[in-house]
């Protein structure tokens, strides 16, 4: 597989040369047999090449291929049990794929097969799994030192890196607290710090904001952004699609055991929904009359009650808004808040997986 990857890299290099020379990219790709590869590896951090995984008769992931570019925050979304964790585990070699391979592009420009050289890629990855992965009976400092030592860092390097990471994840001052005594959010941050202790070029985060309140979620994403800004490629699997939409440059949707869609949030949203989102809040907070008045019209596709009022999904927002104003005025009610937005990635995702 490594050989194939190397061969692929040569082809890719040739492809780039031909494209630079003015040849159409798709024709060149087809000619070189590169059309099965979704994207070029240039500037890539990791290339997932048609991996599948079955546990017994149960097929979890099938023919998944994608490329994660260096320096990006790559989101992975999917329903529970879609195989996000399995996919991440296959990326780092924790689970061996039934078929396919994962090629890691090291900082030295080498392409390394995770399947063939699992030990070589271990230093490339930092992984923060859904459940924090550190020793609860060791202190924050001891955990960092322990994993740093395993990655071959010197004591001086460990001290310096620990201080840097503790500052980055906001755990300064908690160095001597046992991992098990940290709060949920702090544990998550310690886990990320542990994952970063050895300067990995790729950080994989599996549900980094699970079980965190919104404040901590925001804090966590800020940390992730900070990490990313320091040059680390981040791959995040999360069921918080809003966060993925807000923070990830590209997203892969895992559906029906494979990556059914990959692209930026907008690309996905544009592809899978044309609806706008109209959020309305009235003074009376009684929306029954609105629904009954608008029910007969075909101005909205669907609606739902939310904390901030009622949300309508519509492809004709202007018509809907004028009708809303009319009905509210007729009722003698008043509009307290009104928001018009593009539909979220969540809607696109829900449309996709329906």
């Amino acid at each position: 597989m490594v050989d194939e990857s190397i061969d692929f890299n040569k082809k890719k290099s040739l492809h780039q040369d031909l494209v630079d020379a003015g040849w159409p990219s798709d024709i060149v790709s087809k000619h070189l047999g590169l059309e099965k590869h979704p994207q070029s590896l240039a500037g890539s951090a990791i290339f997932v090449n048609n991996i599948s995984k079955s546990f017994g008769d149960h097929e979890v992931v099938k023919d998944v291929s994608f490329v994660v570019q260096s320096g990006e925050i790559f989101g992975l979304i999917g329903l529970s049990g879609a195989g996000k964790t399995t996919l991440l585990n296959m990326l780092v070699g924790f689970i061996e794929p039934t078929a396919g391979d994962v090629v890691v592009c090291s900082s030295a420009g080498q392409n390394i097969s995770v399947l063939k050289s699992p030990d070589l890629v271990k230093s490339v990855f930092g992984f923060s799994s859904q459940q924090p992965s550190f020793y609860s009976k060791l202190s924050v400092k001891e955990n960092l030192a322990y994993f740093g030592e395993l990655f071959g860092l010197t004591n001086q390097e460990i001290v310096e890196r620990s201080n840097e990471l503790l500052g980055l994840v906001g755990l300064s001052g908690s160095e001597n607290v046992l991992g098990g005594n940290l709060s949920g959010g702090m544990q998550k941050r310690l886990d990320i710090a542990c994952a970063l202790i050895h300067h990995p070029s790729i950080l994989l985060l599996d549900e980094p904001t699970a079980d965190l309140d919104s404040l901590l979620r925001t804090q966590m994403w800020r940390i992730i952004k900070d990490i990313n800004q320091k040059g680390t490629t981040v791959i995040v699997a999360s069921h918080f699609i809003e966060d993925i939409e807000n923070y990830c440059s590209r997203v892969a949707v895992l559906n029906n055991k494979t990556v059914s869609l990959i692209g930026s949030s907008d690309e996905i949203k544009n592809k899978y929904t044309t609806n706008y989102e109209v959020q309305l809040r009235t003074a009376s907070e009684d929306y029954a009359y609105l629904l009954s008045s608008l029910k007969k019209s075909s101005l909205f596709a669907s609606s739902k009650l939310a904390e901030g009022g009622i949300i309508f999904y519509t492809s004709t927002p202007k018509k809907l808004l004028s009708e809303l104003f009319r009905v509210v005025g007729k009722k003698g009610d008043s509009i307290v808040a009104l928001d018009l937005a593009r539909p979220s990635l969540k809607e696109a995702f829900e449309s996709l997986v329906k």
Partner: protein
Amino acid sequence: MSKFLKDTVTLVKKNIRLLIRAKASSLIVILGPLLIIFLAGIAFDNTNLYAVKIGVFSEKYNDLSNSFIERLSEKQFKVTRFPLEDDCRSAIERGEVHTCVVFSPEFTMAKDNSNELSFYVDYSQINLVWSVLNAMTEKVAERSMELSRNLTTVLVNALEYSSEQVKTKRPALVDLTTSNDLVNRRVTDVSVRLEEVSLDFDPNAFGADNLASQKNKVKHWVDASINLGSEAISSARSFVGNANDVVQASSMGVEQKNNLKTLFEDAVTEIEELDDKFKDTNSLAGEQFKELAKIIDSLVGKITQTKAQMDQIDSAHTTSVAELVEAKASLDGSLKNLLDVQRALNNIDNIIRSVEVKDPNAVVQPIITHIKPVISQQSYLNYIFPVLMVLVIMFTALLLAPTLILLEKNSSAYFRNFMAPVNGFTYLFSTFLTCFILLSLQLIIILAIASIFFSSTILHGFPNTLLVLLLSVALFSLIGMLVGYVFNSEETAMLAAISLGSIFLFLSDVIIPIESMPSWFMRVAELNPFVVSSGLLRSTILYGMSVISLWKKILLLLAFVVVSAVLVFLFYQISSNSSIYKKWKRKE
């Protein structure tokens, strides 16, 4: 420092930290062995049985039974008297007493076969029953020995008195024999002499009949003589008268005639005188003959009387001789008997003298058994110390290694460890090394405690002991690791470890000797790592044997270590793959 060593040090350091910080593990690792050795030290650092409760029952207590009971009560035994035998037995079942001693109804030294002591014991408490029985029988044997010694003393004294008496009275017996012999000889002489004495009395030898006939003949001859004398005298007279007449009528001168006449006359005178005298003599002879006849008759009577007496004497003589013969026979018999008695006494004396052992103690206990320990006994701890050490090693290793592995397996850090560029063998080795180090530390503590507080002779042949200990630690650590890798939950691993430890324990000679097992099973038990380790440790600690002399068992232990190591590696590989799958199943 190579990466392998560096990683190993890091992992061992982490393992120890985790163990120390996990309360349960700390208990197992540090306090467990200390507690075990401390308790074992206190429990076994003596040579006696304490708090053994004994129930006794006797229909009729007497001095003898009471003396036994007092002897049992003297030391550590608590003795309870029960009114009924059944109560006493039931008390064992209820656990109130450990054994029940029942005295026979007539428990007295006066009786021969009635002094029976029956012990009721509960063999279900197999580990206690032998100790109790040993202790009990020891005490009973002590008292029994005393009684036996007293009885034997009496017997020995009687023997010695008999010997003395034999010795004292033997001269008298010899005298008696000599006297008997002398009398016998005298009787023999008398008898011979008596037999030589002929008491044959023939009255005819005295011619009594002849005497009478001779008397008559004499009378006849006397009468004839008298007649002849008278005739002679008459003839003489006639002759002289005729001679005178012839002379006178002769022509001879007168004178001559006268002279002859005178001579004739003188001759006639003399014949007359002679006739007178003859007549006197005849008369006297008649009287004398009468007297003679009377004497002869008296003599004949007396001879007859004497014969009768002699006949009586002969009869008495015959009787006496016969009686003397009988007496001699009796004397011979007596002498024989005396000699027999003397011989018997000599034999008795010889036998008594030949009895070299006259000390009652020696008679009562002709063979003095000295149970000499091959090492000087200070306490039970010395004896059980090797087993105790292996026991601590075994259980600690069997608990510690799975604890470490399961701590790691079930740790959330398992994934991050996987992500670290450290190969599986390093984890494996570091786990083994952690167990090894911790167990070694425990052993140091145990050895220190044992040598300081319990006066144990553990430092005897220490290098050999150390080698066996290290091999045992390695073996049981690997077995513990095997358990840890086979099982995936701490509960099942602990259960398996304890079960495995129990199997090792039950198939050893700690509870019952393995020699009491069926032969095929015994051979299996002999391969029990616990038995091999404890046997080796016993040899090195107690007997100071070198490992060279124990090379077979050392090799066996080494083989166990190698096999265990291979199995651990295999199960580690299997377990790693399996745990990944299980982790995925849990997450999904």
